[in-house]
């Protein structure tokens, strides 16, 4: 997602990371009890995992996260008026880039004189399922997080 942000930064696309709750609290990153802890964990996300996009913290009780469906790793794309154009229940850079390229082309087509109106479409996108990388990430939280995930999903 960092690369997507970099690749389209000069084409009218902004990109942010919105810090929510700890989905897999563990010994190293226990459940959030304060905004200060949330800010500190978000800084770790930036410094340890290399998130280069601007990171914002949601409210302590996750008002924005909850308002948009509260999935643990989702992506939304908005226009400048705050209208959502795309929503994905899992973040995937290829899927998001496909959507961004499409929406930027819509603007190009409009500027060239095409009269375009929106319509609804649903489709399934596909992502790589890198289990090893997932568990490596989960281990950052601590053994408790790994055990709880295995217990929940086998």
């Amino acid at each position: 997602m960092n690369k997507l942000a970099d690749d389209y930064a000069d084409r009218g696309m902004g990109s942010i990371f919105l810090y929510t709750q700890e989905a897999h609290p563990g010994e190293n990153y226990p459940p959030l009890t304060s905004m200060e802890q949330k800010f500190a964990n978000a800084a770790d996300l930036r410094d340890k995992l290399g998130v280069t996009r601007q990171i914002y913290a949601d409210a302590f009780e996750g008002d924005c996260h909850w308002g948009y469906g509260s999935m643990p790793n989702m992506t939304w794309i908005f226009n400048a008026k705050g209208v959502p154009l795309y929503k994905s229940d899992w973040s995937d850079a290829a899927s998001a880039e496909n959507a961004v390229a499409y929406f930027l082309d819509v603007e190009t087509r409009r500027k060239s004189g095409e009269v375009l109106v929106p319509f609804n479409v649903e489709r399934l996108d596909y992502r790589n399922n890198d289990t090893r990388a997932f568990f490596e990430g989960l281990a950052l939280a601590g053994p408790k997080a790994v055990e709880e995930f295995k217990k929940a999903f086998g």
Partner: protein
Amino acid sequence: MAVNYNYDAFIPENFMPQMRFDKSPALGKPGPDFPLWKIEDRSETSLHAVCASNALTVVEFGSLT
């Protein structure tokens, strides 16, 4: 709002009530606005204010864990 948003264990009783993608806002209509805080200086802004800066804004939700 979830009663146990900042839950202490990843167990179905805690995380399943938060899987609410089917209840999320519709596309094509103005989405709800919420306050957000920049992590470096704790300055307050809002989702819509952030979006207003660009033609498109990609928002990834998540956390370190």
